[in-house]
């Protein structure tokens, strides 16, 4: 086993060849400043890209690395970059989606707070690759410390000539605007984010046209997640082969996994893709602190698994999760304790999606925002019947795949999974009018 780990791809953080890269300086005092960043190799990758690589070479390098979008959808980043049309004199935008709002996800926040120059460097590289003229970082409005530090970092970079005209003596002229959101999960959907940035209500847009053809202000636009852009820095620094030496068949590189819920050391752990849930939960997070019965693998939108060896031993990668009927999502693992009634837990999640539905399309507005939370509330208050249980499941099955954007599916897929594994808790509640697991006080001293 030790021998295999020395020659094959790196899929465990225990592998001695593995090194943390994106989170190397997160948590270190002063890491958010330009001085610190530059004295630790900062902006070397941007210099390399801008002065020694053509835009096409940068795109090819990112393609070859196998990097897939870290915002949840997992679309290959280099391929996305290659969708931008040839320059035609119009403005071209690169957007950073820092509207991190998926319950269970909190990785991007600490990059904004503790290492914002890493993100700015990633945007400069992306701008070079796509010949972009301006960048926007859309940060969720609540991340005030992250916003302040990112704004300060942009100003520092501008003063140092790392943003502005002819950056580092290259042909690239590029600047960044930081835009503060105002509390709307739907802005994580890329076309809704563009509407929000344009000062409109954040309803998603019909695709096509895709953003590369007609994005922000109708101009060619590409949107990437914070972690994707941070990854690009290290891919340029250390090469596509280094990145691709980590991970599994369809999932390359290093990734920020998050873990919350009742474990001993919740937080964010950077690990190679393909590491197992068991390694994250037990080796790094210290194992469950309450008896567990299930876990959510990648943020609240991803269908849950019961606490069984066959699921704990799954590799945390795109393909394995898809094959098992779920998704890697943002990599935000949530541990669910036995004493939390599943119906109550799902009511919490359904209420979240109901609150965040934009109301644009019928299945989501009527199903997700209106009927599902009402039916759950009826059950939770002990007024539900077996018919209500069936109706919830029927609703979820019928909403699936019918809505305008992914938000409705993000709600009903976890509902379906809760029925698949924990139907007995629904039926118990409908029959006895009290939950099978009645613990209500979770607040610690």
């Amino acid at each position, binding site marked *: 086993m030790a021998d295999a780990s020395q020659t094959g791809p790196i899929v465990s953080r225990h592998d001695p060849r593995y090194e943390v890269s994106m989170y190397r300086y997160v948590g270190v005092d002063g890491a958010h400043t330009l001085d610190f960043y530059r004295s630790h190799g900062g902006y070397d990758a941007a210099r390399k890209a801008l002065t020694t690589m053509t835009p096409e070479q940068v795109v090819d390098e990112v393609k070859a690395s196998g990097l897939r979008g870290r915002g949840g959808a997992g679309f290959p980043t280099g391929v996305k970059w290659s969708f931008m049309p040839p320059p035609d004199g119009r403005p071209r935008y690169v957007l950073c989606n820092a509207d*991190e*709002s998926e319950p269970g996800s909190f990785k991007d926040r600490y990059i904004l707070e503790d290492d914002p120059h890493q993100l700015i460097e990633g945007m400069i590289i992306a701008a070079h690759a796509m010949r972009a003229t301006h960048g926007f970082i859309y940060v969720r409005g609540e991340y005030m410390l992250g916003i302040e530090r990112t704004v300060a970092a942009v100003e520092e970079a501008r003063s140092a000539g790392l943003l502005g005209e002819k950056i580092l003596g290259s042909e690239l002229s590029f600047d960044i605007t930081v835009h503060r959101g105002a509390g709307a999960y739907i802005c994580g959907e890329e076309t809704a984010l563009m509407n929000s940035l344009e000062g409109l209500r954040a309803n998603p847009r019909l695709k096509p046209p895709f953003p590369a053809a007609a994005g*922000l202000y109708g101009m060619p636009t590409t949107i990437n997640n914070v972690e994707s852009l941070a990854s690009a820095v290290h891919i340029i620094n250390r090469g596509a082969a280094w990145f691709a030496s980590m991970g599994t068949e369809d999932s390359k590189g290093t990734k920020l996994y998050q873990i919350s819920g009742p474990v001993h050391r*919740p937080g964010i752990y950077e690990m190679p893709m393909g590491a197992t849930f068991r390694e994250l939960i037990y080796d790094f997070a210290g194992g469950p602190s309450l008896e567990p019965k299930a876990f959510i693998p990648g943020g609240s939108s991803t269908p849950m698994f019961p606490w069984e060896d066959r699921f704990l031993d799954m590799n945390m990668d795109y393909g394995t999760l898809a094959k098992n009927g779920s998704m890697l999502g943002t990599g935000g693992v949530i541990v669910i304790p036995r004493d939390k009634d599943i119906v109550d837990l799902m009511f919490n*999640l359904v209420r979240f999606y109901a609150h965040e539905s934009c109301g644009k399309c019928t299945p989501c507005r009527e199903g997700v925002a209106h009927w599902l939370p009402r039916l759950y509330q009826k059950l939770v208050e002990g007024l539900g019947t077996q018919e209500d249980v069936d109706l919830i499941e029927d609703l979820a099955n019928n909403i699936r795949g019918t809505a305008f954007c992914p938000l409705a599916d993000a709600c009903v897929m976890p509902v379906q999974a809760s029925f698949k594994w924990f139907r007995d808790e629904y039926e118990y509640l409908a029959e006895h009018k009290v939950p099978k697991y009645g613990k209500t006080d979770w607040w610690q001293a």
Partner: protein
Amino acid sequence: MIELQTVAPFFADKQERLAEILNRYPPQGRRSALMPLLWEVQNAELHVSEARMQEIADILGINVTEVKGVMSFYSTYHEHPLGRYHLQVCSTISCSLAGADQMYDYLVEELGIVNGERDAEGRFSIQKVECLGSCGTAPVLQVNDTYYERVGRSRCAHLIDAMRRGELPAPWRERGSDIAGAEKAAAASGLGASGEGQGRQGPTGGGAD
């Protein structure tokens, strides 16, 4: 609609700031300044009144109905004044598993106001909010723009006491983050290990328990 101008325009004496905000966006994107302008007003006045909405609409050359449409879409803009301490209790899954519902009940009992209300003195207001991205340090209580993390019962009581005295304690930054990564980095950078937020540590500044 004829309305008596009873207050001075908000941006009248802030032309430089206004120009700076408008200049962040390209000419074809003037309307993009809508959200930042709403923030400017709300930060100063704890809400955005009808008159301010009209003023922003005029600045951007759009109808006030459009301003209202955008404002009402988002959870963090408010038409009615917030308290000086606006308490935002994250209610979503990871915080809920760490006791956010009990924290909310405690605040309701302690302050005598519920979700969406402000007290008679204008000191406190409460809002139940959705996931704040602090799941690893749950439960989180956001006061105005500041996150207070891992707010257990005693920390919550201390926070309320402090705010009643007119003090807002410095936030303790907790991360529960990447222990090995941060240690390695500290060694590499020649700095001491960062005092904050590795694993389950106590508060490092302004701690309340």
